[in-house]
């Protein structure tokens, strides 16, 4: 049974890490969402969306990003969200949760000593949170592997 999957990440390292997870959703009905339109060249022949970025440093952009992400969710109607962060991935998981969409938060490999800020919040929203560092695993945050 193929699933409708939304794989979503901010730009830079978040997006590059997401792309390294691509075999996970091969064969499923995947859509990709990120912030940089030029990233389209890397995703192949799948639906591709962009949204206006936001982080805690520019929190006043939350409404614009949330609006863009809500539109993407309405178009994709995902059954599963996979995100490598940052805050926009958490917004997507939060908006989709009431509609029965499950979500996986893959905390960035950049967070090697503490979970990211959004990763800490993700525990309240996402169905599963994983860290890429074995020494950060807890009973709730699992370690499944890393992108490197």
């Amino acid at each position, binding site marked *: 049974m193929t699933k409708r999957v939304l794989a979503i990440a901010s730009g830079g390292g978040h997006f590059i890490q997401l792309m390294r997870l691509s075999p996970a959703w091969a064969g499923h009905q995947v859509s990709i969402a990120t912030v940089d339109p030029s990233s389209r060249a890397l995703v192949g022949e799948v639906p591709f969306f962009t949204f206006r970025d936001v982080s805690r440093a520019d929190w006043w952009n939350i409404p614009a990003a949330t609006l863009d992400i809500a539109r993407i969710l309405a178009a994709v109607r995902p059954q599963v969200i996979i995100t490598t962060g940052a805050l926009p991935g958490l917004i997507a998981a939060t908006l989709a949760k009431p509609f029965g969409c499950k979500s996986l938060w893959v905390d960035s490999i950049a967070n090697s000593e503490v979970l990211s800020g959004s990763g800490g919040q993700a525990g309240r929203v996402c169905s599963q949170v994983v860290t890429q560092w074995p020494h950060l695993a807890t009973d709730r945050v699992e370690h499944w592997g*890393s*992108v*490197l």
Partner: protein
Amino acid sequence: MIFVSVGSMMPFDRLTRAMDEWAAANPAIPVEIQIGKGAYEPRHARWVRKLALPDYQARVAGCALFVAHCGMGSIISAIEAGKPILMLPRLEAMAEHNTDHQLATAKHIGIRPGLHVAADVDDLKARASALLADSGLAPAPISRFADPAFTARIRAFIES
């Protein structure tokens, strides 16, 4: 050619300025800097605000030395291209990032072969010259994708 990238999310003028000074001292070596949101505009090196992602990857693959902040996008791009990378971590105390996680990245990932971490701008400039003369080991080649055991667990999550 030396390609320099400071990352796209926040300015990092300390790195841009240091490599522009290096370019002034080494006029025979072309230097191109992707300065992102920085305020300092290089006077000696070529510069660009932001390259399209395929062009950025082509620069990393084509340069003799890649110099960057200590961000995972830069590190993974260097490893995938098999290029040595010289990094200057962003510091929270200098308002270069929200946290000091780039120092943690330097400590936990910067130890891999082909990855080099500078302590400060003087160390950065000295090591850029040294690495250009002898780049040492290239990063070990890796697959285009994460460990299959990791992606298999994510697939199981999707299908459960």
